[in-house]
């Protein structure tokens, strides 16, 4: 009798676990955001970190001669120039390093193999994690921009037109780098390491894309290398929109968006293909469970 009672809940029509792409993606997103909200102190500390970084360039800006900025078309405020560079880096990091970081943690904690044993599709997992990363990035980006504008009086041109233009540029900036993120994540699955390479990519991008200084100060050969990075184009257009009031009709901005689009068209399919190959490689070799 007691055995029947125990077995009763397991009998009858089994409810199937929801497995649509959309449901899986929103479940991952929900889970990540719940974790994010539970770390209130961390959220506050990270936000304050961004504010302190911007405050450093507020003081630093006092020493900067504005001629180089003005001749590049970025106005005369170094704080505004640096603010856009530093704040938009958060999207770069999320696009490039988010999936690798999450994978590393899952591999180290031994939860990635368990995830693979469920009905969760790996694409849903990646997309859910990436979306969660971008929600966090948007939070930090907004926090940094608002504190730069309202606390430190950075002079940005904020009109509906420039804001819409900026959002479109950021969207293409993210797309252009997502493929690199997938490739990096695939590399982690195969090699079980790779963060230093991602970190180096970040440092090189910060240096060459002109996050802290206009590209005009670089020697021509380094400037040529800088023009092979999608972040250079995205950052240039973002600054033109927010510092020089240019809109989507501006030829330079159109050109930069097209270039970011081409990077996205080439890198995203290749990145997904590479990640799938790496995932299958790790699955067939049974190395999903260790790091």
């Amino acid at each position, binding site marked *: 009798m007691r055995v029947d009672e125990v077995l009763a809940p397991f009998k009858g029509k089994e409810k199937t676990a929801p497995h649509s792409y959309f449901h899986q993606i929103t479940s991952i997103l929900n889970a990540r955001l719940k974790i994010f909200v539970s770390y209130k*102190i*961390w959220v506050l*500390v990270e936000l*304050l*970190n961004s504010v*302190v*970084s911007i*405050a*450093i360039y507020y*003081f*630093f800006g*006092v*020493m*900067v*001669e504005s001629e*180089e*900025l003005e001749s590049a078309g970025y106005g005369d405020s*170094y704080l505004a120039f640096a603010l856009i560079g530093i704040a938009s880096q958060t999207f770069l990091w999320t696009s490039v390093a988010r999936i690798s970081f999450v994978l590393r943690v899952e591999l180290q904690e031994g939860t990635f193999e368990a995830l693979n044993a469920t009905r969760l599709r790996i694409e849903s997992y990646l997309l859910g994690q990436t979306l969660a990363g971008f929600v966090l990035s948007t939070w930090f980006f907004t926090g940094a921009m608002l504190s730069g504008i309202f606390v430190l009086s950075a002079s940005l041109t904020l009109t509906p037109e420039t804001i819409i233009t900026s959002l479109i540029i950021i969207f293409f900036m993210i797309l252009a780098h997502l493929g690199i993120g997938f490739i990096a994540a695939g590399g982690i699955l195969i090699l079980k*390491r790779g963060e*230093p*390479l991602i*970190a*180096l990519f970040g*440092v*090189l991008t*910060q*240096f060459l894309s002109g996050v*802290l*200084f*206009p590209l005009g*100060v*670089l020697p021509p050969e380094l400037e040529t290398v800088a023009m092979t990075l999608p972040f250079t184009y995205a950052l240039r257009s973002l600054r033109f929109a927010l510092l020089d009031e240019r809109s989507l009709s501006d030829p330079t901005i159109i050109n930069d968006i097209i270039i970011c689009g081409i990077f996205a068209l080439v890198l995203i399919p290749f990145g997904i293909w590479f990640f799938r190959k790496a995932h299958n490689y790790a699955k067939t070799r049974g190395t999903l469970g260790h790091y």
Partner: protein
Amino acid sequence: MDYRDNEKLWNVIESFKEGEQKPRKGVSFNEKVSTVVRNGFKIFWSYRAWIALDLIGTAVLVALYFYLSVIVDPDTIEDAGYGASFFTFALLGIAFQQYTYSSVETFSHEIRHGQENGTLEAVLTTKTEFPTFLIGIGLLSFIYATYFLICAFIVAFIFFDPVITTNVFSLLSVVALTFLTIIAHICIGIASVGIIVKIKEGDPLLWLFGWLTMLLGTIYYPLDLLPAYLVPIALMMPITHALDGIRRCLSGSETLLSPEVFVDVLALLAFIIIMLPLSIKVFRWGYNEARKDGTLHAY
């Protein structure tokens, strides 16, 4: 099969038998510290790809400040008494700032790492005392900071020609200032370990220190650029005096006998005299509380 037939197994079993075991001699403090350092160095050296990438990262960082110096007005640096090169100013700032990181953050980083991985309590159940373990970690970290400093200078001298004006006496003064800087920051590191072993979560003291150092520690700009109400806070921080003294010695050949550098030394000594007993007290409180709670291993 009788184990006596297997010579290797026989030797292993014999070595565990009572009476034949040689009594273990006590391991000295120096041996323990050098073991921690050697062990850390072996781990460091095993990550060669990481070392190479770290070197490239250092070179890129130095290059970043070189090109940033192109848009900086050198008069602001000259007016502050640090020569006419922003690049040299920034190079000295970022290179010596690594020592403050080593003195302060390494301890709490290693403690947290040990707590997360559950290895801290295992170490503490051995005959190695906690302070000995910490000194080993600290020493390793200073070796790394020195390595970073040397790499940054080599890259700077090869590619970017920093303006360093110095002599033997000013170099010796820099060594003395660096030593005082390390001791002053170790005080903060010790206090932060006391807090982290007790409260487990991220260390508020460390966050505050990190923010204040970056913002007010004169790493990227001279003190004169700060508004008047922030200057007293900046002057309470050891890094401000350390960098002022080091820059004066390496950019203007001054020595400990120069009035400005002498004031910096006095300020660092005052900080150490006040903070050392205080930080030991905080450390003892946190350590003893965590031992009483039985949560020394938990994070």
